[in-house]
């Protein structure tokens, strides 16, 4: 009884204590991008197909696959509300179900282009 009861009580304590632990903001899933219409970049946004970003996330480590026909992969990190990759920086906002990304993407030969991204509904992580 003691061998089972004590660990069960311990587990309940862990679950209670764990409620105070926070995890990185979730951004995993497919994202549709809207670019600043005023931006002029010949090799940029026009070459992307929607959903333009597919994000796989493990904690603060993120892998972004850009839907540019070559499936360019970008390693990124989430630090608080900031998403940082080699050619992309964005601010994360909203609740988990209504999350938004707003930031800038860098394309060859262009000035950074502002974008706003919306996550597609019912995304699952994996593969």
């Amino acid at each position: 009884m003691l061998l089972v009861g004590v660990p069960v009580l311990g587990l309940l304590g862990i679950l209670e204590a764990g409620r105070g632990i926070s995890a990185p903001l979730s951004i995993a899933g497919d994202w549709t991008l809207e670019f600043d219409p005023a931006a002029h970049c010949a090799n940029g946004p026009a070459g992307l197909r929607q959903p333009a970003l597919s994000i796989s996330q493990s904690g603060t480590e993120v892998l972004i696959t850009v839907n540019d026909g070559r499936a360019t992969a970008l390693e990124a990190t989430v630090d608080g509300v900031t998403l940082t990759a080699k050619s992309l920086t964005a601010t994360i906002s909203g609740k988990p179900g209504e999350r938004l990304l707003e930031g800038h993407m860098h394309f060859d030969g262009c000035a950074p282009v502002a974008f706003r991204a919306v996550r597609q509904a019912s995304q699952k992580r994996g593969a």
Partner: protein
Amino acid sequence: MLDLFHLVLQIAVILVAARIVGFLFQKIHQPQVMGEMVAGILLGPSLVGWLAPGVSAALFPPASLGYLNALSQVGLVVFMFVVGLALNPSELHGFGHAAVLTSHVSIVAPFCLGGLAAMYLYPRLSDDSVTFTHFALFMGAAMSITAFPVLARILSERGLVRSRLGTLAIACAAVDDVTGWCILAYIVVLVRMTHAARPAWVTIAGSILYVLIMLSVVRRIMPAFEREFRKRGGLSDNLIAVIVVLVLASALTTEWLGIHLLFGAFLMGAIMPKSPEFTRYLLHKFESVTVVLLLPLFFAFTGLRTRIGVGGGRAIWFYCAIVILVAITGKLGGSMFAARLAGMPWREAASLGILMNTRGLMELVILNVGLDIGVISPAMFSIMVLMALVTTFMTTPLLEWVYPTRLFRAQADEIHKSVA
């Protein structure tokens, strides 16, 4: 559109890899299934995708993986039916204090340690789409599982099935599996209810009604199959098809209820009549195609989702070491300690702990469910897959070290002489 060429090529490559690696693992005294699991991992980004990304991309293009997944899921449904079929509740009777104590502690101890590890891993490998409670409960369930089928195979290969240690291990593993699946069902319902449009009461009331119908109505119909088997010495193809349809119907019901289709298949197997001849007959009918063809596809699909050593840097290996240490301490240590307290000699208690620590493919099944419902991240999935491989791989050599075959045979001979 279905790319049949790719699908058939994938199946052929997977089967060849599974048989070759399985054969090589048998040469080093590991169960064949261990080699098949490793073959699946090797075909994924952890080896082929890393060494030859072009080959990997050509062989397993992302668009083609849906069909491979579908086939492997069908295989899992049949496999879970087979696992339920092999489970015999009468084996759980008559083991007294040792079995009750060991099986309970072997669930609670790793569950608790898994929850504790979750406190450290949650902020590092999860995100805020998953609550800590869901993450910790899943970690606990994944840590406390024992691979009943792999365990039975290891015991059989070592001639330990009818020994006191073997029967005790099978009884404890059966209790662990049933409890583990019940806990997992609860977690799946919890997670899915958070996102589902269906009201919670439909899932809860529906699940209770489903289990009641299965245990009180369907279970009473099942002996008709056994009677037919005894009368004719076998079952016609039509009756086998009826059993398959019943398995699928049960699986679809639990999937619709939001529990997961594997639970329905498992319960259908568990309520089948358990006479040894009938069970052997059905196992023979269902096992070959599942074990030879469909399970390797599941291992390969698991391997394609596993990225051991890809990304995450050194920290990932540190997390991996923590998970493996926690898994072994909780399961092996917990079972051994409980068995010793129940009066088993140290050698047998340690052997029981080693056997209970075998996670094998049941762990892979649970991890895939966890990744599908989004309760664990891809990195956590890869770490747990590695833990499953390590804990399964270590069983045979560790058991041989603690309880050598020659020693077991000598003891068995002594018992025979004293009985004679």
